[in-house]
């Protein structure tokens, strides 16, 4: 399927392995990515905090650019984008007059947002568009014996009503399902739906890293081999900041954290290096006992 693809900022900044692994995985799943390279940052809630209309206009612009492509829908690979864009879209779709007001901001660029865009994170797209059966059928190297802790973070599971999480779409179970479909074992631990702490890292570093450190520690106690995240900002606090978090909570951590496309890519037969797993601060290649797991024999 063809999708208008919004990679977000961090996947092209401090977590380039996310953007890179998505590009590698997409063709294996028959996803054609039309990158929205003139779109702007979603604002991550911070621009909305500064000026709501500005955040709504920036995202309406992104949506309008997506609607100009021939993609079936818009796809993102960042929960924070998903959440921040869903918030703006909720306002735009709920009120014609407001939408027109924002469209007037865009008019001079020749852009216009029409209500009702479908914008899905890669996780949602995997389950709802590609389907777990198709995914299973494409698995070349099942994640047998790999104990994976899902870390959903916040923006992709809350608020439930805005994100349309209901009985028909139990989107707060999708990471569990994907791990299972890839042949892995889901590890339940206290941090599954908690916050990584990233949004307050510049305001209250200690509290921010305590959150990251606690969830990583809980995952270790539950004997997870690694965590998987649908959000690069969670990855920053859980992986890039892990050594600092370890100091704050006063315990050894060393928990590898995988981006969702990396986990999928492993099971689809790609090797850790081409998925950029050597770019992580906590190198999954050196921590996971691959000999009993998925990539036995693959060059790490």
């Amino acid at each position, binding site marked *: 399927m063809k999708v208008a693809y919004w990679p977000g*900022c*961090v996947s*092209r*900044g*401090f*977590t*380039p*392995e996310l953007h890179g692994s998505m590009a590698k995985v997409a063709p294996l799943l028959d996803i054609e990515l039309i990158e929205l390279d003139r779109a*702007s*940052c979603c604002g*991550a*809630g*911070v*621009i*909305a*905090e*500064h*000026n*709501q*209309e*500005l955040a709504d*206009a*920036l995202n309406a*612009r992104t949506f309008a650019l997506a609607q100009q492509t021939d993609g079936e829908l818009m796809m993102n690979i960042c929960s924070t984008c998903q*959440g921040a864009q869903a918030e703006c879209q909720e306002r735009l779709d*709920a*009120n*014609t*007059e*407001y939408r*027109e*007001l924002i469209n*007037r*901001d*865009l008019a*001079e*660029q020749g852009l216009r947002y029409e*209500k009702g865009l479908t914008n899905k994170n890669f996780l949602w797209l995997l389950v709802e568009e590609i389907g777990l059966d198709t995914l299973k059928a494409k698995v070349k190297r099942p994640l047998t014996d790999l104990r994976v802790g899902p870390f959903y973070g*916040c923006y992709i599971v*809350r*608020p439930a009503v805005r994100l349309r999480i209901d*009985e028909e779409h139990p989107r707060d179970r999708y990471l569990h399902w994907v791990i299972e479909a890839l042949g892995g074992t889901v590890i339940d631990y*206290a941090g599954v739906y*908690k*916050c990584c*702490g990233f*949004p*307050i890292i*510049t*305001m*209250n570093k200690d*509290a*921010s890293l*305590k*959150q990251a450190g606690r969830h990583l520690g809980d995952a270790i106690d539950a004997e997870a081999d690694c965590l998987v995240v649908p959000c690069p900002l969670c990855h920053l606090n859980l992986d*890039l900041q892990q050594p*600092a978090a370890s100091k704050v909570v006063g315990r050894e951590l060393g928990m590898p954290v995988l981006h969702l496309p990396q986990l999928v890519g492993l099971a689809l037969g790609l090797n850790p290096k081409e998925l950029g797993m*050597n770019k*992580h*601060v906590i190198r999954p290649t050196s921590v996971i006992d691959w000999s009993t797991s998925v990539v036995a024999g693959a060059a790490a």
Partner: protein
Amino acid sequence: MPEYTLKIRRYDPQSGEAAYWDEHTVEMPETQSVLDAILQVRNEIDGSIGIRCSCQQAICGSCGVRMNGKPGLACNTHLGEAARRGHGTGSDAPDERGTANEAEGRNTIIAVEPMGNMPVIRDLIVDMDQVHWKKIQRVTPWLINKEPVPEREYIVPHENMVDVTQTMACIQCGACVSDCLSMEIDPGFVGPAALAKAYRFVGDPRDAEHAERLKDLSEDEQGIYDCTHCFNCIDACPKGVDPMSQIMRLRRKAGSDFHINDRNNGYRHEHAFVKNIRRNGILHESDLLADSYGGKFHPRAVPELIGSLPTGITGLARGKMTPQKLLLHQHKAPQEVKRLFDEIDGRQERIELNLYVTGYEEEEDLEAGQRKLEEERADAAAEASAESPEAAADTTTAESSESETSNESENP
């Protein structure tokens, strides 16, 4: 009639014994409340179960508990709804998969626990005084009159009252406090309920101390900038108060109206972020870090940047970051993005749409609105072709649409 397994968390701190799950089976329609089930067990089987409740109408706010991991009022949560959650973020949350009921396609276990972040007095009763009420007192939860006090009643503009109705809907049940993830890590955080209450007065034109209140809550290390955007309070609230949105409105007022440059970097971070996106279109992380502390050469930034050095060096070593990426701006914002920033940010008045107030348009309203707009556009186009293009643009000014937006908000 459906049968539910009620698992109640029992604990008496004075007994010296550990907490345990107490299981009872109730037979009740799925539209009865969780509170109905608890009271039935208490009346008929075990009179020692501790739960606080009064009105049973979702007004008094007494019966806040966690049900299958999610906080809320026991009196306005249907048994069926609680059971359907089937999983959650609480301790020992039951998993519907693999149970006998899964075959029938439904979970019938409802685990009821006391709210979190507050000490348990007994069973489902928590000590609200120790946490919730202390925090409410922290924000000076009363109106400080402007002097001199008017002789007659103070007439408040309608839009201002509408603006604070959302925070006034709070019934002080503590459900948001229960699941606040910032408070879980940092118990001193003022927290969602109290900050929503603070907006009640910051948004009230009769109050004399908007600036003082905002300065106080911005400068407090555990004030408005300690919220981590986790959205738990929004999902927890049984009354739609959206405490997190109220916190963001406090930040918006503190930063954009009062320019309070707080010591927690809240203001600097927000402004650095906005500047960063205006310039680059997408986020340039290393600049943001420096600018959030006041710029690369700011005395405050130096220790912070040195503190971040090990992280930066690891990033470089792993090839996550490159010297180019750290120092140069490779991505430039398209002119259209810059123009949006300058135009919208440059306006005198900020526009906010609060869906709690305006509500969601029904499908048919939306379609009618869309048709009307299309007709208007067609008319405008016809006029424009008859007259000059400038004249056509003048027919829709920003002011007129602003007042329409606020008029609509008067009819929630």
